């Protein structure tokens, strides 16, 4: 579609109600997960659903990651299910603080590790979109 337009849709927690037709409006699905059992379990349910729906690009975004061990656990989980982990967002006290204050982390702590990693996520999404177009 329009090359300079981006739509970001913050979805309901569950994607069980998605249908094939409506998802034609989405070309990239980000599945945000925490490195905990129940979060990964939800992820494990969503991945095959999304694969069935034929979404062009699906990526896992690991969030609230506290170290290499947690990162590795999510990476392994993704590899087993054939889905790419596109970003590792760190557990960041600054995100919690901004959240409690009701202000965007981007305004409160623009230099935070979290914001830095979301910027890397943005760059990788663009790179992926370019790849898809060719």
């Amino acid at each position, binding site marked *: 579609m329009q090359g300079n337009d981006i739509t970001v*849709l913050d979805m309901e927690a569950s994607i069980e109600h998605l249908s094939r037709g409506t998802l034609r409006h*989405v070309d990239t699905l980000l599945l945000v997960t925490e490195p905990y059992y129940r979060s990964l379990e939800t992820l494990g349910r969503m991945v095959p659903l999304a694969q069935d729906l034929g979404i062009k690009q699906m990526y896992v975004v690991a969030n609230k990651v506290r170290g290499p061990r947690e990162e590795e656990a999510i990476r392994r989980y993704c590899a087993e299910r054939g889905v790419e982990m596109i970003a590792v967002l760190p557990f960041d006290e600054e995100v919690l603080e901004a959240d409690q204050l009701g202000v965007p982390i981007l305004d409160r702590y623009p230099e935070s590790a979290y914001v830095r990693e979301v910027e890397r*996520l943005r760059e990788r999404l663009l790179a992926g979109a370019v790849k898809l177009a060719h």
Partner: protein
Amino acid sequence: MRIAVAGKGGAGKTTTAATLARLFARSGYTVTAIDDDPNPNLSVALGLTSEQTSKLGRVSREEILEEVKEADGSATMHLKRPFAEVLEQFGVRGPDSVGVLVMTGLLGAGRG
């Protein structure tokens, strides 16, 4: 690019969606952020003022989308009118000029 952000509640999808939207806007893209969550808090994460948030109208999907049956029997959703117009009527422009819409049920399964 049309990006949907999903995940278990509390996983941080709203913060991620909001930060991503604003970073795209800062790098020169025209960005629309849509809140499809029944407990909308994307506007807070984006940094809208409470005055702006109170102006946000809740758009029903029927208002802007219509279902079109394809030849193969599947149904697809189409915009009834230009997106900019919808944003003008129901949405607001927040920090970094990110357009914000609240549209609960946007991607719900074909009801009926």
